[in-house]
């Protein structure tokens, strides 16, 4: 049995993740998706909001969570002009799966983490497309699945960048006290 430590240890003690870090980084990621992307590469643009959400669910599950996934999903729904609750549902499912295996993901180094996250990121795009099909909104454009692949490829640089900026240490590199 994996029992979480009662007291913060290592880098978590010296540079704990704070609410400000979580909210500001999520806001930045959300504005990234709001940028006027070119029409030709629109289907290739990864969902940065979801990536950051999953990042914080792995690094600081007490600060993120399903509630946050739900509200971010609703925001994304409005920004994208799709049915209310479509992205919210997809975000909730992805967050739930990540929280289930959070202990394992936390301990992995970045390449292994990427391999584990790839099906989740791809599954989210597939879920959005399938839900659209179920609501009778026409033929699915399966090119959009590429966004899941792009997100997985961008995971290592993104995780590294956010680690550096917020001075988080991945658990695998923490030195035991």
């Amino acid at each position: 049995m994996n029992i979480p430590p009662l007291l913060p240890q290592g880098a978590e003690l010296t540079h704990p993740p704070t609410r400000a870090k979580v909210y500001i980084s999520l806001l930045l990621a959300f504005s990234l998706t709001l940028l006027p992307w070119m029409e030709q590469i629109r289907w290739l643009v990864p969902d940065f909001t979801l990536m950051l959400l999953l990042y914080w669910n792995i690094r600081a599950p007490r600060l993120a969570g399903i509630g946050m996934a739900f509200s971010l999903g609703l925001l994304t729904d409005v920004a994208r002009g799709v049915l209310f609750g479509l992205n919210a549902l997809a975000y909730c499912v992805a967050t739930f799966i990540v929280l289930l295996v959070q202990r394992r993901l936390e301990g992995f180094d970045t390449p292994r983490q990427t391999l584990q996250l790839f099906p989740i990121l791809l599954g989210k795009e597939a879920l959005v497309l399938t839900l659209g099909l179920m609501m009778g909104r026409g033929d699915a454009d399966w090119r959009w699945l590429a966004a899941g692949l792009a997100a997985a490829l961008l995971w290592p640089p993104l995780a590294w960048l956010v680690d550096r900026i917020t001075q988080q240490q991945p658990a695998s590199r923490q030195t035991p006290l």
Partner: protein
Amino acid sequence: MSRAPHAPLFVREMGLPARFGLYVLVCLLLLAMDARYFALSGVRAGINAIIHPAQMALAKPWEWLDGVGRFFVSHGELAAENQRLKSLHELLEAGLSDRAAITAENTQLRALMELPAREGYTMVPSEIIETSTDPFSRKIIINRGERHGIAAGWPVVDANGLVGQVTRVYPWSSEVSLLTDRGQGAPVQNMRNGLRIIIFGQGSDNQLEVRFLDMHADLQPGDLLYTSGIDGIYPAGVPVARVVKIEPPRHTPFARALCQPLGGVGRYRHIAVMKPDRAETAVARQLAPGAKKKTP
């Protein structure tokens, strides 16, 4: 209240699966409400009013970059473009006088036949600020909204023909469903013989469809389709599509015709909303709450 970032000693909240189930239930409820009853347009407009300024601000640097890029075009390019525009201008002028003559003749003929003149429309020029990030819908966001007097249900055109219809109005922007959107339809008339049919979007960028066509209907590839104006939403005589192919009936007793839209559906940056001079028609008002147009 700030919660400790590490695990608390005593857990006083619902378990993860229970919370997940609850949120999924809420999501499904919202989906059903939005898809079937259009009950959440107020909430959506509210959240959009918050997001919209951010969207506009984020688009600004790109416009500036675009402007800087345009500053550095070479002289030759400008000269060539000038030449091209001049010839285009002449062409347009010729077409315009032609059109004026035809319009004058048309008014005369109408007066002769004692038909009521078509009610006037004012063009509200607008710019496309965003295309939808949804693989299923063909929708665009334009920079004219409730504050500019736009209302849901009004037709949207460009220089070549019908583009679509305003389906959702936000305070500073509105959403236009393109003719190619799966839920859109328009009553049209064959220019050659006056045959009245209804044309539907298919969800593909460059194709419209006439479903349930009588297999003996006189429709040929190359025929031009114009709006018939019998729905009270689209004015009569706006070019809509050209017939490309007629598919003979296979599994059903009906034939099917594929058409190509004439208006630049999803191609241009500038389009015009047709604002009826009279107050909105009863039909438009009736259609306003529901996003989709119901064809007769």
